């Protein structure tokens, strides 16, 4: 029978201070995890409220102003407080040093600081919510954001601060991956999750400062009328969109790239098979990271941007599809002749393949100049990015959460309830957002409080789906929390995986490994080694 190791990072020291001021990357990872899950719950409540209001045209449960604030908060909370830090800062923090056989990240103090900055930024977001909230949409387009009476300054200050949290995490990870790898672990023996985090970190440090200066200029525009973004002061509102999307488009890849990394781990581990096309997957992450900086103008085809610039951005946008396609097909090829098991994390990985493919393909409609004119700023866009962000990133995040949950706590969750939960989530998600593709194509603009009567059946279907999805997430919360206290011990390597983090105990000791580890096999050597599953 498996036992929880007597000495581990969870009981190494006790008391609230030992958590809040810990320098242990695993505890910081968990602090992040709790924070982002709180944000996810909050954002989820906003989402349900949005769908309730849209049950019928006209007023259902709230005023237009309130509705505008709710969808803004849904976007801002989900993006800045949940999805951007979700995989890198929460899961990456916990797993990355173990995957490369290090005792910690390169700068543990900076790591703790980044969490505190995250909390500090979140406080500003809460201040904004309690002092009139924001109704601009998470994009803060000028001149609406410079003229609205809502508390834009507090929210954008929060975003500015959160940016530093993201930068510090990225900086820390780049240095960690460069300098902290265990002896024998060369670049091409790194697990692909590490490659994903590396590509993500590069985007974080390159793009986030531009977000910083953008919101700073926005605040100055509001406070001092500097005339950069506000047309009334001689500024150019389209320039704001350039600034904003120079960050926010790459930010989409901050969200998806680490998710793709997790999928590589899951597909390989649950097929017990060497990953197909390792180098292609690794380099496609870097390629995506690079190209992501060249395509921001595809958000601006109808914004008054020059048509020639639109054409160039459209062309560059299509380039990003190619490395993404390579990844999808390489994962499929990994399944071939594997020893496939459908444990919950694998179900999440396959859901990812299903949903992300839809998300990626619908991106073609939006990258194409002529069709985007009709679809821009409609529910088609809303559905597209939810397929990528929820169907992609969130599925990968929960896949990783289930995969590493026994690593975090040494205990297993209930497999049956986990499968029931993902069934609800998967079905509910598709009902919610497939109907939105149709809504958008039929001409339903986004950010509408009310709508034409003819759209009502599809809106109601979408709202119905959101409830099913919510049930799925609720079940998950219950069995995961239950597992932390009452789950049966999982053993050191529950899934029989070969990456480095499974070489140590679950949960690991304070410095990850009892002895300095040495790499004896690659992360995917399933053709040489048959690891034993401990559950």
């Amino acid at each position: 029978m498996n036992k929880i190791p007597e000495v581990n990072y969870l009981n190494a020291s006790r008391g609230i201070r030992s958590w809040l001021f810990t320098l242990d990357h695993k505890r910081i990872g968990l602090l992040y995890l709790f924070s982002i899950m709180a944000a996810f719950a909050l954002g989820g409540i906003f989402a349900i409220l949005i769908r309730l209001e849209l049950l019928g045209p006209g007023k259902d449960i709230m005023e237009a102003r309130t509705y505008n604030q709710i969808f803004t908060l849904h976007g801002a909370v989900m993006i800045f407080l949940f999805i951007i830090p979700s995989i890198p800062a929460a899961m990456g923090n916990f797993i990355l040093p173990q995957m490369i056989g290090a005792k910690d990240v390169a700068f543990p103090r900076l790591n703790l600081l980044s969490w505190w900055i995250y909390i500090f930024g979140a406080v500003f977001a809460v201040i904004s919510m309690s002092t009139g909230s924001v109704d601009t949409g998470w994009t803060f387009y000028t001149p609406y954001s410079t003229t609205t009476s809502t508390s834009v300054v507090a929210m954008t200050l929060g975003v500015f601060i959160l940016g530093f949290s993201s930068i510090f995490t990225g900086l820390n990870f780049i240095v960690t991956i460069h300098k902290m790898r265990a002896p024998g672990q060369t670049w091409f023996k790194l697990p692909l999750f590490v490659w994903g985090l590396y590509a993500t970190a590069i985007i974080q440090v390159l793009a986030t400062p531009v977000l910083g200066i953008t919101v700073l200029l926005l605040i100055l525009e509001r406070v001092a009328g500097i005339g950069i973004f506000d047309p009334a002061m001689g500024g150019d509102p389209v320039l704001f969109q350039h600034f904003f999307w120079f960050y926010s488009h790459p930010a989409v890849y901050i969200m998806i790239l680490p998710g793709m990394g997790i999928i590589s781990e899951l597909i390989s581990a649950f097929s017990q098979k060497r990953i197909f096309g390792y180098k292609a997957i690794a380099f496609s992450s870097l390629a995506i990271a690079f190209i992501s900086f060249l395509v921001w103008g595809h958000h601006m085809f109808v914004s008054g941007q020059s048509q020639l610039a639109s054409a160039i951005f459209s062309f560059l946008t299509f380039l990003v599809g190619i490395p993404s396609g390579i990844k999808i097909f390489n994962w499929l090829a990994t399944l071939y002749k594997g020893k496939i098991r459908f444990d919950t994390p694998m179900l999440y990985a396959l859901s990812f393949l299903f949903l992300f493919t839809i998300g990626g393909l619908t991106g073609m409609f939006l990258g194409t100049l002529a069709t985007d004119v009709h679809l821009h700023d409609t529910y088609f866009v809303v559905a597209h990015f939810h397929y990528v962000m929820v169907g992609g990133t969130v599925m990968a995040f929960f896949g990783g959460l289930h995969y590493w949950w026994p690593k975090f706590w040494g205990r297993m969750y209930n497999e049956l309830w986990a499968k029931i939960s993902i069934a609800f989530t998967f079905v509910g998600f598709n009902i919610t957002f497939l109907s939105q593709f149709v809504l958008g194509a039929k001409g339903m603009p986004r950010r509408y409080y009310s709508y034409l009567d003819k759209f009502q059946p599809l809106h109601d279907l979408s709202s119905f789906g959101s409830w099913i999805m919510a049930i799925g997430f609720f079940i998950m919360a219950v069995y995961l929390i239950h597992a932390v206290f009452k789950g049966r011990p999982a053993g050191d390597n529950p899934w029989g995986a070969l990456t480095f983090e499974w070489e140590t105990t679950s949960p690991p000791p304070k410095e990850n490994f009892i002895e300095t580890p040495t790499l004896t096999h690659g992360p995917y050597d399933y053709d040489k080694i048959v690891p034993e599953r401990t559950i």
Partner: protein
Amino acid sequence: MSGHSTQENRHIIPARTYIAVGVGLLLLTAVTVGVSFIHLEGWNAIAAVGIASVKALLVALIFMHLLYDKKIFLVIFSTAILFLGIFLALTMFDILSRGEIYPEYEKTIEKNAVMYKKAEPAPAAEPVEDSTSDVQ
């Protein structure tokens, strides 16, 4: 690894080199100020940015040791410059090519910001004739 070599890659540059670079930077400053007084049409901006780039490169390569240190630092620095360039180039491309298809895209309607209006006397309110619905 020898036990006491704690500061790796210790390339000590002669003081002469530093001072020569410092003097070079000051001379280039003199040149750039001088050039700014000569009227060279559009070339002034190019000269100014060109000289500044040479100066910045001297600082980066010698003062910041990029020439002597591991190449990774040079890669990081170049990456920053590359992405600054991408940001600048693609944004400016939009700004400069807006009038290519519709000339109306280039101009603003009011040249001056609203704050300059207060100074001028407000134009007398003149209701525009509505020729359609007036039935005499």
